[in-house]
């Protein structure tokens, strides 16, 4: 008998997290040549030994992986083979005249005016270079003559690097254990863990099941905001995404009453002194932010060494 447990989802606040990353992507020879050539208002394709033409140009045939024997100039006209509307914008597949693949792009027309099989032509965007969006989109062109693929004598040097960026937003669910821990940090300014099975020492962050014994963890326990450094290093380089002034100490700290580590930072004046004064075993205390707590680990602004 398969029976569903008596549980149900509850709508609760989430934890917002962002990942922001800049990139320098490498398009390779074929795509790099296509992107370099859009400023000349040409669509560059790849011609393979089989006679197949793929546009925009590709380094490897999507049919069998073979490498192109030449770059060619593809026509700027073709046939619309499929289309849809996304966020009010029409996108479609275009089979350029004389080419063997579908080129996805914007269709600059109303959805209701389109039909699969109709002729379309590229419209360029004067303000854009080095991007597939230099072609603004394809417009219906019922009378456009059928174009032909033309050989090329010379092409621009391929672009080696294309700047790109990603911003990813996440809404993580806390779950009951993290939820209670962060509520306690925000409301009461205390760090709560749960006891290891059969022991008094608390696991931080709290969790339902002990990692080693796989037994259910015990009752909640407030840990102190003082603790001992288990491991530490002195950050002395600029890293993308880290805004804190260097040098400072990255520390893995076991709070008094806990058995697992918390990651935090300790401010220092200079590297040479910190090498000697801050090490595994050094006693530290939390320095909380002034003002309203938000219910995150950064409600503790930093840790500081407890003078012996």
């Amino acid at each position: 008998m398969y029976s569903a447990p008596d549980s149900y989802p509850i709508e609760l606040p989430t934890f917002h997290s962002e990942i922001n990353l800049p990139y320098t992507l490498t398009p390779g020879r074929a795509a790099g040549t296509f992107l370099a050539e859009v400023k000349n208002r040409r669509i560059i394709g790849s011609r393979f030994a089989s006679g197949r033409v793929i546009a925009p140009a590709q380094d490897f045939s999507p049919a069998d992986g073979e490498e192109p024997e030449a770059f060619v100039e593809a026509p700027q006209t073709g046939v619309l083979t499929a289309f849809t509307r996304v966020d009010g914008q029409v996108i479609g597949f275009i089979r350029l005249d004389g080419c063997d693949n579908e080129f996805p792009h914007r269709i600059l027309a109303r959805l209701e005016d389109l039909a699969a099989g109709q002729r379309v032509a590229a419209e360029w965007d004067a303000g854009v270079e080095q991007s597939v969006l230099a072609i603004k989109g394809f417009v219906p062109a019922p009378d456009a003559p059928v174009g032909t693929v033309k050989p090329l004598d010379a092409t621009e040097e391929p672009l080696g690097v294309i700047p790109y960026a990603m911003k990813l937003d996440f809404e993580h669910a806390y779950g009951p254990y993290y939820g209670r821990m962060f509520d306690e940090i925000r409301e009461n300014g205390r760090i709560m863990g749960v006891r290891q099975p059969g022991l008094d020492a608390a696991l931080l962050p709290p969790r339902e099941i002990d990692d080693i014994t796989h037994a259910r963890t015990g009752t909640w326990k407030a840990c102190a905001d003082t603790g001992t450094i288990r491991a530490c290093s002195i950050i002395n380089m600029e890293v993308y995404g880290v805004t804190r002034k260097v040098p400072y100490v990255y520390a893995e700290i076991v709070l008094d009453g806990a058995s697992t580590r918390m990651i935090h930072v300790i401010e220092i004046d200079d590297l040479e002194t910190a090498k000697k004064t801050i090490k595994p075993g050094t006693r530290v205390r939390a320095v909380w932010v002034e003002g309203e707590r938000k219910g995150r680990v950064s409600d503790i602004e930093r840790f500081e060494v407890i003078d012996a």
Partner: protein
Amino acid sequence: MGRHVGIVGVGQTHHSRRRTDVSQAGLVREAVDRALADARLSMDDIDTIVVASGPVLFAAVNQPEKWVVDAIGAQGKSVVRVTSGGGAGFAGALAGYYQVAGGFSDRTLVVAYDKLSEGQLQYSISTLYDPFWGREFAVGIMGFSAAYWRARMDVLGHTEEAAAMVAAKNRNNAIDNPYAHQKKPVTVEDVLNSKPLCWPIKLLDVPPISDGAAAIVLASEKVAHHSTGRPAWIRGIAYCCEADNAAERSLMLSEPLALASRQVYRAAGITNPRRQFDVVEVQEPYSCFELNYYESLGLCPPGQAADLIASGATQRDGDIPVNPSGGCMGANPIGAVGVIRLIEAATQVMGRNETHQIKDASLALVQSGGGWANLRGCAVLSA
């Protein structure tokens, strides 16, 4: 016990800080072409394919295997992607090994790569941290690695000098490696005097950031002889994990590596690793890691890694050479490194390493790992 599996063809790119002439897919293609040519095979002869690379955030292409498949002409074949941080290449090889050993494939191509010039390496690695608990203070893998090296200094005597000896050894070994791209002679003093980045990790303790790909062809005993008269047989391979933030996790010794080596040594009949192995290839993301591996792999007892490196035994002319290729210090395209280490060990036991052959090498140990130092594996290769 499964079927015997051999490495019968190998290929890698000339790794570099930045390859602007090829895309990620083009990079993979180069390594695959070389491995297939080396195995005297074409793509038609390959049954299954494993594509391995590091975290997607390294180079912003999600599900890259669909791009790679087109570029290597593998349409219609069985393809899986494996990713496991720094151990991605090794985990990919393990997945390929299972396919051949299990009898589901006679020839499996494993290709691993990363194109690290394209993204933000340490920031991407920081996203491995728990977003609630630690990520806002993360400094990639470097802050963490340096912190536990600092702790091992006190407990196990892994001094800055000992790690500097590792860095100098590997950097100088890399000079002869035709595939390495960082090839400057370096002294122990140079390493010690280099700029602290995450102290105790200094600039010359850190490998380069690289673009590169590496591929191997795995074959069953039945078909291996079509490619080579002397395959590198995989005598044992394992990849183990441990809990991320458990109370018992000290990070002094690498427990998952000790577990993996115990398992692999039993399979391969290794009772005295220091005496039995002719050559060792390890993945050392920072110099300090190699000291840790000496102990977890049983090349020396815990606490004696500094003595082992100081004795010269792990130099290329020592009794247990470690990273005669230069290891990660010559090139570090992270996701590919597990396969690069396998290639280095395989060419040693096949007796065909052109530039840094260890004389009469017939038994080699390979180590690789990923994740938060909590995924560690090793393999034994023999002639």
